[in-house]
C-alpha cells in the first residue's frame, strides 16, 4: 500500500481487515521506499520474482507521482502482472485515462465523505478477498 497520508492508510487497513482479508499489508509513505521494495535496490525487479503482489497506489506522493511508479511497475517484467489498484482523490478524466493506458487494473476515486469512503474500502476488501493474484515471473 503506497499512501502518504498515515490516517488514510490506517483507515484503509482497518476496513480491509474488517472485510476479512488477512494477508500481510506493507504500508509505504513515499515513492522511493516503495520502489525500492518493489524493484529492489538495483532496480531490476528481480526481488519481486515469485512474489504475489497486489499494489494499492495513491497518486499524490511527496517525492513523485503515483503515475511514475505505475509506469515503472508495468514496464518491469517481474512486476507487470501484479494488479495495481489506483486509489486517489482526483477524478480528473485525463488522469484516469492515463492510468488505464499505463496498465492500471482498477481506478477508484476516494469518496470524500467518510461513509462513501469506508463503503468503497469495504467493497474493495471484499473484492480482494475473492481476487486471484498471480505469482510474478
Amino acid at each position, binding site marked *: 500500500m503506497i499512501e502518504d*497520508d498515515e*490516517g*488514510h492508510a490506517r*483507515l484503509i487497513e*482497518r476496513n480491509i481487515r474488517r472485510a476479512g482479508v488477512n494477508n500481510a499489508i506493507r504500508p509505504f509513505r513515499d515513492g522511493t521506499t516503495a520502489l525500492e521494495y518493489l524493484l529492489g535496490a538495483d532496480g531490476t525487479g528481480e526481488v519481486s520474482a515469485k512474489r504475489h503482489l497486489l499494489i494499492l497506489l495513491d497518486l*499524490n506522493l511527496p517525492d513523485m507521482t503515483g503515475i511514475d511508479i505505475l509506469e515503472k511497475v508495468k514496464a518491469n517484467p517481474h512486476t507487470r502482472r501484479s494488479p495495481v489498484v489506483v486509489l486517489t*482523490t*482526483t477524478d480528473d478524466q485525463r488522469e484516469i485515462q492515463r492510468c488505464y493506458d499505463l496498465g492500471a487494473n482498477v481506478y477508484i476515486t*476516494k469518496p*470524500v*465523505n*467518510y*461513509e462513501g*469512503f*469506508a463503503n468503497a474500502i469495504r467493497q474493495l476488501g471484499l473484492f480482494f478477498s475473492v481476487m486471484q493474484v498471480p505469482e510474478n515471473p
Partner: protein
Amino acid sequence: MVHTGYDPALVALSISIAIFASYTALDLGGRAGRTAGSARWGWIAGAAAAMGGGIWSMHFVGMLAFEMGMPAAYDLATTLLSLAIAVGFTGAAFGWISRRGASPRDLLIAGPAMGLGVAAMHYTGMAAMRVPGNLAYHAPVVAISVLIAVTAATTALWLTFRQISVAQKLIAACVMGIAVAGMHYTGMAAATFTGDAAGAHAMPSADMGHGQQNLALAVAGATFLILFLAMLASSLDQQRIQRELRASEARFRAAVQAVRGVLWTNDADGRMVGDQPGWSAITGQTRAEYEGYGWADAVHPDDAQASVEAWTATVRERRTFVHEHRVRNADGSWRHYAIRAVPILDARGEIQEWVGVHTDITEQRQVEAELRESNEEIQRYAYIVSHDLRAPLVNVMGFTSELEATRTEIGEALRGHPQAERIDADLGEALGFIQAAVTRMESLIAAILKLSREGRRNFSPERLDMTALMNRIADAQRHQTEQAGATVIVAPDLPAITADRLAIEQVFGNLIDNAVKYLDPARPGRIEVRAEGVGGGRVRFSVADNGRGIAARDHARVFELFRRSGAQDRPGEGIGLAHVKALVRSLGGRIEVTSELRVGTTFSVTLPRGTVTGHGQDGPPLRLAAE
C-alpha cells in the same frame, strides 16, 4: 443696307468681360465641387450668375460696340428676358452637372443645354433691339454661332468641375472668354440690317454714339463690380479653407503626439514611399531600406509573412487595417505593436493614400501575460488547495466514525457506572458537531473545486439560437416555475450568438433558477428574458423578475463566493452567482445587477456576438475635409 462697324474699345471691353466672367465662374464652380450641403448650392448659384450674367453682359456690350449708323433702342422687358435666359440655362446646367454622382454623360446633356441657352439669350437680345430698319439672318452663320455656343459651354462646364490649378484656370478662362465672344460676333455676322432712311436721320449720330458708349460702360462697370464682389467672396472662402487646413494640420500633428503612436503613410497601392520619420525613428531603417515592402524586414520573422499578407489583402479590399506584430527597434530589441491604418479617399472616392499608426503595446502585452499567469496560478492554487484540504477531512471524518464505534464499546465497558449516560451523551454531542462541521467544510471545498475546474474548462464555441436555448431552460424548470405560480417570458427575437453552449446554459439556467427561487409571495411572479444590441458587436441579455429584490448594499456581494443576500429561507450555498460571474468572464462578457427591494431584480449579461478575436470593427474610410 446700312454701313456697320465696331467700336474697338467696346469690343475689347466685351471680351475682357467674357474672360473675367469665365474665370469667376470657374473659380466659384470649382469651390462648389469641394463643398457639401447648402453652401454648395450657394457657390453653384454664384457661378451660374457669374457665367450667365457675364455672358449676357458681354453680349450687351458687344451689341453696343456695334455701329450700324442708325439709332437703336432696347426693349427693357425682352432685354431682361434675355438676361434671365442666360442665368437660368447656365444655372440649370451647373446644377445638373454638379450633382453627386454625375457621370461624364451628364456633361453631354448639360453642355449643349447651356450652349443653346446662350444662343437663345443672344438672339432674344437681338430681338430686343428696336431699330428703324429690318433685321435679317444668314442661316448657315447662325448655325455656326450655335455650334460655337454649344462647344464653348460644354468645355466651360467640363473645366469648371475639374480640379485645376490657378494657371490652368487662367488659360481656360481666356479660351472660354474668347469662345463666348466669338459666338457673339459670329451671331452678329449672321445678321444683316436694312436701314430705314427716314429713321436714320431722325437722330444725330454723334449723340447716339455717346449714349451707347455710356450705356456700355455702365453695364460693364456693373458687371465688373458684381464679378469683383464674387471674387472677393471666393477669396475670403479660400482664406477660410486655408485657415481650416492649417488648423487641421496642427490638430493632426497634436493627435499623432497624443496617441504616442508612430505615424506612417503608404501610397494607394500599399507601398511605403517618401519620408517616414516615425518609422525610421523606431526601426532605424533608411528610406532605401523601408521603401516598398522593405519595412517587412524590420518585422519579426515569425510575423512578417502574415503581416504582408494581411496588409495586401486589406489594400485589395480597401478596409481598415487592424493588426499586431513585433518590430525590431533601432536598439535591436523587439517591441510589440498594435497597428491601425485607414485609406484616405479623395473627392472622387479613390484611395489617395493610407495612413497608419503603430502603437507600442509591449508593456500592455507583458502585463496581460503576467495577469494571465497569475490567473492561472490562482486557479491552480484553488485546485490544489481544495484537493489537498480533502485528504485531512477524510481522516477527520473517518476517525470520527471509528470513535463512533469506540463509543459503543465505551458504553459496554461503563455499563452500571453512575455517569455512564452523561458520558455517552457528551460523546454523542461532540461527535455530532464534528460530523456536521466536516460535512459543511466538504461542501465548501467541493464548490471551490468546481469553480476552479470551470476556469480551466475549454470552451467550444458554436452558433446558438438564443430564443430556443432560453425556452429550453425555461421548460426544464417549468415544474418549479408552476409551483411558484410564476411565468417565464422569453422574447421571441433574441439575437443569435456564437459561444460555448454548456457555459451559456449554466449562466442563464442559474439566473432563471434564482429568479424563480426568490420571488415575492405578495404578487404572481413574472420573469422576462430580453436582449438588446450594444456597441462593439456585443449583445446585452437581461433576466428581469418582479421578485423580492436585493438590497443596494448587497449588489456587489451577491457575486462573491459563499455570500447570500436577504432572508436565508431557501436552500443554497451561495455559489451560483459566483459561478455565473466566473463563466461570464471566461466567455469575454460581463454581468451586472440592478435591483430594488420588494420591486424586482434584473441581471444583465453582456456577451460578444461572436468569439473574442481582439480585432476591432472596421470604420468607414476617411474622407479628407479639405485638400
